């Protein structure tokens, strides 16, 4: 019988420094069969082990439409992420998953999208963006609004340019006031403010937002306020302390909902339905 806690051995193929404290890790499973069969949805996450140090959950930043490897973008925050940042190419790590519900692709098909990201919150959105770009015919237009504290805190810098140049994509980048440098050509201002300024029409559109909780809070307010989005048109991801990823260890619940299994992706309407416990 399968051991649900058993990590699968994976090898670090490439490490891309994104910002002073964020790196992207490209991994392949050691087991070729698993590498071939491993599939997932944008928005799902894995438990990433450094043997002897520990395990922590990270969203998959890559897209299942680009098989061959999986990618996680990880910010140095604590013990496990420090150990991950110390990894070198060809090092062995452990991966189990994927876990969580992922973005509701079926419901996004045929719709226009506006993706609103802040900081490392672009990681799960990148999975969705790549997925949409690879299946362009199935989606409407896509507006991407992405911001970080400063120009050097923007992740996926090379890819941002590719997205900008893709047909049907409108991208607006912003940095917090004071975070711009002389070459900066994007916006200066907080993400919710820039979102209001760009003001993509809610017609047949879904807004997906990931980022720091405070940013999400104001994005929800802006979108449902003047911009006229309905709560069921807005999708976000929640973050909670997680250990098992399987709804057993007991710490990631909001009310009766377990974020690791029932989430991490929710519509704003679903969060409202959780009532006072959210």
């Amino acid at each position, binding site marked *: *019988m399968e*051991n649900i806690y*058993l990590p699968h051995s994976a090898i670090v193929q490439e490490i891309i420094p994104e910002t002073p404290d964020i790196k992207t890790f490209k991994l392949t499973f050691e087991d070729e069969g698993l590498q071939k069969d491993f599939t997932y949805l944008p928005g799902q996450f894995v438990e990433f082990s450094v043997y002897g140090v520990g395990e922590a959950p990270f969203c998959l930043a890559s897209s299942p439409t680009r098989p061959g490897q999986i990618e996680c973008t990880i910010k140095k925050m604590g013990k496990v992420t420090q150990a991950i940042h110390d990894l070198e190419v060809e090092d*062995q790590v452990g991966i189990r998953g994927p876990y969580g519900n992922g973005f509701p692709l079926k419901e996004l098909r045929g719709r226009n999208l506006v993706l609103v990201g802040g900081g490392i919150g672009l990681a799960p959105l990148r999975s969705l963006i790549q997925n949409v770009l690879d299946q362009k015919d199935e989606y409407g237009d896509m507006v991407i609004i992405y911001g970080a504290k400063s120009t050097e805190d923007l992740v996926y810098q090379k890819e941002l340019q590719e997205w900008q140049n893709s047909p049907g994509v409108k991208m607006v980048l912003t940095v917090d006031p004071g975070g711009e440098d002389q070459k900066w050509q994007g916006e200066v201002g907080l993400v919710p403010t820039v979102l209001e300024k760009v003001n993509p029409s809610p017609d047949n559109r879904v807004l997906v937002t990931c980022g720091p*909780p405070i940013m999400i809070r104001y994005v929800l307010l802006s979108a449902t306020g003047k911009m006229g989005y309905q709560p069921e048109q807005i999708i976000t991801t929640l973050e909670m*302390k997680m*250990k098992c990823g399987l709804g057993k*260890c*007991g710490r*990631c619940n909001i009310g009766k909902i377990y974020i690791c299994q029932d989430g991490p992706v929710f519509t704003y309407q679903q969060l409202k339905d959780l009532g006072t416990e959210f």
Partner: protein
Amino acid sequence: MKRLVRKEELKKMLAELMENYDIIAPVNKEELIFFQPITKVEQILWDYPNSLKPVKEFFLPPREVLFQFNQGKVQPADLPPKKRLIWGVRPCDARSLLLLDKVFLNENKDIYYLEKRRNTALIGLSCNHPQESCFCTSFSSGPHSKDGLDLLMTDLGEETFLLESNSPRGEKLLKGRGKEVDKAGEEKREKIKEKAERKISRRLEPDEVLEKLISGFDNPYWEKACRQCISCGICRYLCPTCHCFDLADEDSERVRFWDGCSFPSFTKMTSGENPKFAKKERFKQWYYHKFSYFKQNHSVFLCVGCGRCLRNCPVKIDFSEVLEQLPARAQTPPREG
């Protein structure tokens, strides 16, 4: 199958079983009752108030090695090969395992828990002397319930026990022992059962509690109710149904530890954010998990009424009273934002 078995014969049966099973049974250790592996039948207690710790530790140990990391290989820890038999487990604790099964034996089966469950026979002992803190009858159960047991023993007095099987494994263990149960035996057992049930005066109405909890999440009552709590976590650790755990690496091992919602670290994220930092939130989580969330997710309350939380709280919080005193239909101001 039901049989009347003399105590002497039960002792012989145990001695026989010791050859094939590791026997875990209640013993007296410095005036406290513990379940632990035994090697001699004489160590066993035949009449005792329920043990300090529940038997969950034999299925979900406080510290359990899941894997060993050895030069890049992840080796799952060996599972115990010898069969185990827990002798004298109380009906409330047996029932708690059925509740834990809902967490660990659902579609994502936990092999560590499963193997121990599969490997362990449960021989219960009816509870003839419930304590003031007991309230098992509030959960459609009782001091003579067979739920979750392979075999239930009831002490009829005069060195005689009525044994009743409740599974094929129990039937096999009982086959050929003692003699048939006569009418007098049945009647005696029924009387003892009723007497035991009558002794339980503490009562909770779980369905009413659920309703009150659903409307009372923001009730200021919780501020007051949690004031005394020192967040020591003993109620969580001694609860037979609390099962929250942590996973961590120690050198070359991945270990599972008991954890609990009374501790601020339980929900603290690496970023420093902590949605349940406030004592009130941690205090509530326990009640809501047991009487609201678990019920909504699994159609059953996550409590067996064993009373350990009540008996062992160092600041004497009366757990069932906290729920009883929660006001019905709370008047809460509308939430902003």
